[in-house]
């Protein structure tokens, strides 16, 4: 039986009248390779090459306007003892963690609220998106004015109401400045989380809630055992992007504080820009940017695999 099967298979595999070229043309994998090539070229040219170049630059003493020579780990060794670098690492982690957690909490709350039957639902949903639609630089300038040490409307209002006697030093005090930029980031980032989670909520079948209600489940139990488990794939994706956007934030900080006061709001991205472009130390700036990669990978791994362990996320079919 086995021999017969083998013979049949062999005969089928190599019909004498089909050339190798024809077989290749009919091969789906070969065709797929060609379809993939434009995307691969795009990714290599615009993602892999700049990334590789950045990593390479971090091992050189390149300056703006001229190439450098390989200096090994010198840039990293210098940064290891650089207090401003570690301050920027601390700031970045604080900024990302606090902003992401709060954005998630508010975003989820808003999404649940918007999923209910509210009057003017469509308009409210559109309004929620406004902070995300406004160009970042514009909203950053608005916040810069709101938090200005001398001209803050918040300080002015509180003074007029008699709650304070002196202006609040929003951007002049290190911790105040940190909370101010985090607040601005949360304001800007909540709509993305809320609307995406809302899209996820809409995919949950109402029959599940009906069944649970008939079984006597409370609101919390419905959320905990239906909404949350079914929403986790979306949460994983949203939080991965949210963490990435927050970790690599640049515009808000640059417009509002330029990393100040006394570098208290420098994120790794802004610090990298200052060293590489403002000061001309391309190599050192590239090293700061490269140092972001392990943190980013860590953040992605946590939000990707920590939040959901479905097979599709690990390359298999979903169950």
């Amino acid at each position: 039986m086995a021999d017969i099967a083998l013979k049949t298979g062999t005969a089928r595999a190599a019909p004498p009248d089909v050339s190798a070229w024809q077989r290749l043309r009919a091969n789906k994998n070969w065709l797929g390779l060609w379809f993939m090539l434009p995307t691969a070229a795009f990714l290599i040219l615009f993602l892999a090459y700049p990334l590789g170049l950045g990593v390479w630059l971090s091992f050189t003493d390149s300056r703006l306007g001229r190439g450098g020579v390989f200096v090994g780990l010198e840039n990293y060794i210098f940064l290891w003892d650089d207090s401003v670098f570690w301050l920027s690492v601390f700031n970045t982690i604080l900024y990302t963690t606090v902003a992401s957690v709060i954005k998630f909490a508010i975003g989820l709350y808003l999404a649940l609220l918007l999923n209910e039957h509210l009057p003017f639902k469509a308009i409210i949903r559109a309004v929620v998106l406004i902070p995300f639609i406004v160009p970042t630089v514009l909203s950053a300038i608005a916040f810069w004015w709101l938090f200005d040490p001398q001209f803050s409307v918040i300080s002015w209002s509180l003074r007029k109401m008699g709650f304070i006697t002196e202006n609040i030093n929003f951007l002049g005090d290190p911790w105040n400045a940190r909370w101010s930029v985090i607040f601005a980031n949360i304001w800007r980032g909540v709509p993305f989380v809320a609307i995406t989670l809302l899209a996820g909520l809409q995919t949950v079948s109402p029959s599940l809630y009906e069944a649970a209600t008939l079984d006597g489940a409370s609101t919390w139990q419905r959320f905990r055992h239906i909404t949350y488990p079914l929403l986790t794939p979306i949460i994983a994706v949203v939080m991965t992007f949210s963490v990435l956007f927050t970790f690599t934030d640049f515009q808000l900080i640059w417009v509002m504080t330029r990393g100040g006061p006394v570098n208290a709001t420098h994120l790794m991205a802004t610090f990298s820009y200052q060293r590489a472009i403002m000061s001309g130390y391309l190599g050192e700036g590239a090293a700061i940017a490269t140092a972001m990669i392990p943190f980013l990978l860590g953040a992605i791994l946590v939000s990707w695999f920590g939040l959901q362990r479905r097979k599709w996320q690990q390359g298999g079919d979903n169950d």
Partner: protein
Amino acid sequence: MTNFTRRALVKGATAAGALTALSGPALLDWAKAWAQTAPWKPEKDAKLSMLRWKYFVQAEDDAFVKLCEAFTKATGVKVEISRESYEDVQPKASVAANTGTGPDLFWGLYSLPHLFPQKCMDVSDVADYLGKKYGGWVESAVKYGHSGNKWICIPICYSGALMNYRIEASKKAGFSKFPDKLDSFLEYAKAMKKNNTPGGFALGHASGDGNSWAHWCLWSHGGNSVDKDDKVIINSPETAKALEYAKQLYENMIPGTAAWNDSSNNKAFLASEIYWTNNGISIYVAAQNSAKQIAEDMDHAYFPVGPSGKPTELHLMYPVLAMTYTKYPQACKALMAFMLEADNFNPWIQSAKGYLTHCLNAYDANPVWTADPKATPFRDVAKRTLTAGGLGSVGEKAATAISDFVIIDMFANYCTGREDVKTSIANAERQLKRIYR
């Protein structure tokens, strides 16, 4: 059309004190005559693009546009001008230098050309031509313009950063004239704060105002980043003294100066939130337009001097450079020279109302410096200023130290209490040693 001969026109224009501003057809005739006799003949079909710092005084920009239009009509070379906030000119120029593509000319701040001297065109012939014709360059301009033996940029002008103060508030605090010594200035700051009329210096990353006062404070106490051989000497008792002095000043400033950028003190002064600061004449010009009572009640003064008795000011230099990648080097040189010719420069500097100060000695005679006595102190800023780097070279390293805010951060770290004296100096020293290695 005209009875002027080319020679007569050009000769007339070369008179260093030629202050009669040409306009309309006369300016065009002069420009045409200049173009024919100038040593630089623009390339055929040449067109230039220039990125310049964004104006602070509208009239200055209008006059500059007119000047460029006259150049275009006379030479046929179209000049496209784009403007950026002066802090953004540097990164753009750096990227252009790195990639070899971008505007032909960059008009930026301080020692910008020294960030990439090998990418700047040699303009020694233009500098020599102008120097000979207009009474020579001031010493600081020569230092800024040179890299090695050649001129890599043309120092167009300075923007003086001097003390701006309110007259009545100062009198109430017991100061009929602005203090000219360090000790009396500290007393002044304390008295002003006590009267609820405080002032302030920018301690944030303010390229202009921040760098200007922080360097003055360091230098006036005898401190220096580097010596004349570019050896780092920041770690000194003089630097510690400067920091202690700055901290006392800071305690008597309005809160929030650690967050200030270059525009913050302008806004605060014009809103009567502060009563003294360091700035160009732009506050005064703005006040003349929109807050006349402030303009009348304010004046300008030199920074107080330290024990050396000599000025230790740092004023903003605006050099223009041409990139080596330009296809039109002759056109670039022609425009640079054209900008500083008396018939162009005099009306232009007048339109800047004292915001810009010349680097060529002959322009001392411009009436802008005497028509309003409040503008007079700005006439001499080019002669009073030290260069970026202080005792050291004005090259790439000094430019980097300024761009990286090493000195401001040192002061800010100590004044805000983030670091103690030793740590703030040590951190600045570490950074400077890397820059000056």
